[in-house]
């Protein structure tokens, strides 16, 4: 780094704040446009007001929530340290909270495709800017190299703390890594929400239990003890005529706890991977340093970070551990949802409302009927076509309509050991040829001699559903014999 590096001053800081302000205004303007479009051009007034409006020109640092931007050097020089928002306490930045809230309220108003994509831009931008802030803080320091090291170390510390929190069931937020964030965890939470919308509620309940607050105002000291006690309570057999419902509730509660554990296991595995990623990034940076290469843009740093993340993640995703935590997570979620379904179902029965399982039964039967009727209709159409074709052929028509005659089926066919390739006949595939062989029909000569009644019998034995006659296997065999 050059002598310019110590140019940390008031004006740079202001410029930085302006850049941030500009960033959030971008989103504010976008959302206004989106809102207006969604409402047919009434300026989007029905949408939540811009949260920046009341925050003055230089609001609090919107990236404050991100533990990685808690760069000690930045903190030191941060003019916002004495901002009115400081009273909300460290980490609880009202600015970011407002943005998130306002964004989630805005999003449903946007057309489907745009909303989803805009969300990605929003997430990506937030990460990119947070990385920019971290590096800016370091670069602006008097000893930028040391500051970068410190920045990395502080991320390390935050991740270790996070892991510790997860292990002790005390984690609250998912920290972001520059450029990549806890994307997968956030995405899972969104998915779980969409599959089981009541999960948020139950998570609160579980947290209470995990922290030692048992239902009914019982306080248990020690996390593990409370959970154990609760689990024991859930295993007490239900009594009386409400027994079944009681058991259903107990089962649900047990499975909610299992889900909570599974999610914790998944998060823990991810947190450890995040730590490995950070190590990988540091290793890459040191490697570059040794070889005299350097990164000279934010974009370069971001890309390198993504690269390293993807590499570490791919290894993790192919591990046995991942297979287990991932499967456990999905299975635990499904188990909870299944219990919820059963509870709901029971209520529906009491209210005399049709249930999902009744509808399932009907749908299954209906599908079976449809399958059969489609097949029959299809065959009928083919037979009709065949009949029409026969009607237009004066000779042969009569012969074949005799197929349903009462003449006896022949009891012998010409003996022949020569095996022909019967698949030359249209409608006979290798499998059918095998079946015919098994019935003793091995060559064209034998097939050509099959009479109508025997053909009917064969049709039934081979389950060819009329194809023997329809495709005229016998006629084809005769032709092939010349």
């Amino acid at each position: 780094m050059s002598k310019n590096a110590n140019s940390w001053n008031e004006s740079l800081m202001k410029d930085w704040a302006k850049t941030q302000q500009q960033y959030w205004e971008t989103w504010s303007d976008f959302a206004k446009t989106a809102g207006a479009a969604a409402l047919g051009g009434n300026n989007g007034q029905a949408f939540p007001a811009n949260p920046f409006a009341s925050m003055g020109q230089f609001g609090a640092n919107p990236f404050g929530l991100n533990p990685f931007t808690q760069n000690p050097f930045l903190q030191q020089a941060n003019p916002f340290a004495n901002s009115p928002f400081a009273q909300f306490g460290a980490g609880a930045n009202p600015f970011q909270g407002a943005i998130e809230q306002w964004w989630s309220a805005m999003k449903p108003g946007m057309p489907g495709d745009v909303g989803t994509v805009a969300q990605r831009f929003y997430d990506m931008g937030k990460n990119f800017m947070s990385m920019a802030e971290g590096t800016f803080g370091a670069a602006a320091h008097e000893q930028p190299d040391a500051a970068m090291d410190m920045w990395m170390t502080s991320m390390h510390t935050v991740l270790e703390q996070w892991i510790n929190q997860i292990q002790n069931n005390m984690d609250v937020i998912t920290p972001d890594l520059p450029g990549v964030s806890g994307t997968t965890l956030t995405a899972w939470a969104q998915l779980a929400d969409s599959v089981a919308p009541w999960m948020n509620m139950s998570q609160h309940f579980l947290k209470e239990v995990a922290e030692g607050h048992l239902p009914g105002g019982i306080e248990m000291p020690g996390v593990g003890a409370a959970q154990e006690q609760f689990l024991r309570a859930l295993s007490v057999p239900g009594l009386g005529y409400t027994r079944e419902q009681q058991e259903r509730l107990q089962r649900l509660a047990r499975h909610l706890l299992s889900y909570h554990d599974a999610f914790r296991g998944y998060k823990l595995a991810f947190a450890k991977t995040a730590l490995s990623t950070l190590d990988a990034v540091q290793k890459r940076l040191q490697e570059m340093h040794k070889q005299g290469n350097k990164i000279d843009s934010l974009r370069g740093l971001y890309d390198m970070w993504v690269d390293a993340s993807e590499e570490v993640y791919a290894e993790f995703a192919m591990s046995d551990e991942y297979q287990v935590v991932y499967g456990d997570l999905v299975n635990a979620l499904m188990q909870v949802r299944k219990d919820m379904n059963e509870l709901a179902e029971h209520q529906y029965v009491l209210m005399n409302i049709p249930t999902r399982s009744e509808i399932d039964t009907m749908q299954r039967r209906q599908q079976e009927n449809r399958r059969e009727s489609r097949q029959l209709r299809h065959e009928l159409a083919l037979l009709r076509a065949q009949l029409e074709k026969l009607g237009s052929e004066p000779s042969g028509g009569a012969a074949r309509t005799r197929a349903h005659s009462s003449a006896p089926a022949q009891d012998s066919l010409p003996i022949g050991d020569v095996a022909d390739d019967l698949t030359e006949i249209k409608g006979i595939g290798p499998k059918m040829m095998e079946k015919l062989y098994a019935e003793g029909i091995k060559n064209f000569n034998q097939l050509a001699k099959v009479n109508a009644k025997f053909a009917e019998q064969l049709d039934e034995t081979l389950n060819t559903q009329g194809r023997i006659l329809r495709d005229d296997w016998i006629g084809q065999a005769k032709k092939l014999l010349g």
Partner: protein
Amino acid sequence: MIPFQMRPDEILAEARGFNEKLAKGVGNLMEVGEIPSGVTPKEPVYKEDKLVLYRFKGKKPATNKTPLLIVYALVNRPYMTDLQENRSTIQGLLEAGQDVYLIDWGYPDAADRYLTLDDYINGYLDRCIDVICARHDIDKLNLLGICQGGSFSLCYSAMHPEKVKNLVTMVTPVDFKTPDNMLSHWVQNIDIDLLVDTQGNIPGEMLNWTFLNLKPYQLMAQKYLGVVDLLDDPKALKNFMRMEKWIFDSPDQAGETFRQFAKDFFQENKLMKGEVQIGEYTVNLRDIKMPVLNVYAEQDHLVPPDASRAMKKAVGSRDYTELAFPGGHIGIYVSGKSQKTIPPAIGEWLNVR
């Protein structure tokens, strides 16, 4: 020490540049307008339940008298093959003289939960093939299966070889348990019965989440950073949005079909073992004797090349050809490079057979 060597004012300038591009461009998202699902003119020729069979209209009549039916996967939507002008596999095939049909499976809802593989393959697909054969007064047609649709086409060709003249498969998994198959690795510990019994149909969102998680940092974050540079170019932005629309357009999966596909194909690898049971048939890939062209992508993160190349030893065909494309699972349909090579190669292969 860290070799990140930027001055604060440079960082500031880059962050500001990023902002300005985003500010100017993000509003353009609202201007993109309607994105069509496919660009080549087509007409529906057969409908059943939610399925529509389309025939595409080429600029000149097809030279190959045997029609080509494209069987797409149930996951995601078939307009991937016809995303935009000059990036359309369909157009490439039409130009190569093929008479192209395509099955659009539609969006299953709860009432379709009990659709089985038998319904899809021996029902829907078989009837579509009959319809096409009747229209052209032929006994056999050419089949082109894509991804899961390729697996379906393999099953169909093994069960009904008398109706398939030539078989083309693209990015099609055959061996579901190669060591580099991430998707398969994840599925092994999932209780599929619990999943289907509880959910009924499998939500498209769930599959989408799974696919994005194969490369989460690139697909959910980095990609969008790259696009910030394109935001002020309406044409480039629209093309980007076509792909985005496709990615997030994931139909739910009919429960019973998903159950069998996930268990028999992914978990137990029965297609390789010749043990897949569909309706009254046991699928033995050895029964596939017609010419086979297997097209795979060398950088496919969904269907690893080895998963696809296993076809060579599994099928009974003596006329088996492989075509490798230097790209990914999606790139094989939409990249400019593939546009110039893949459809013409398929057309040529079909025309001489």
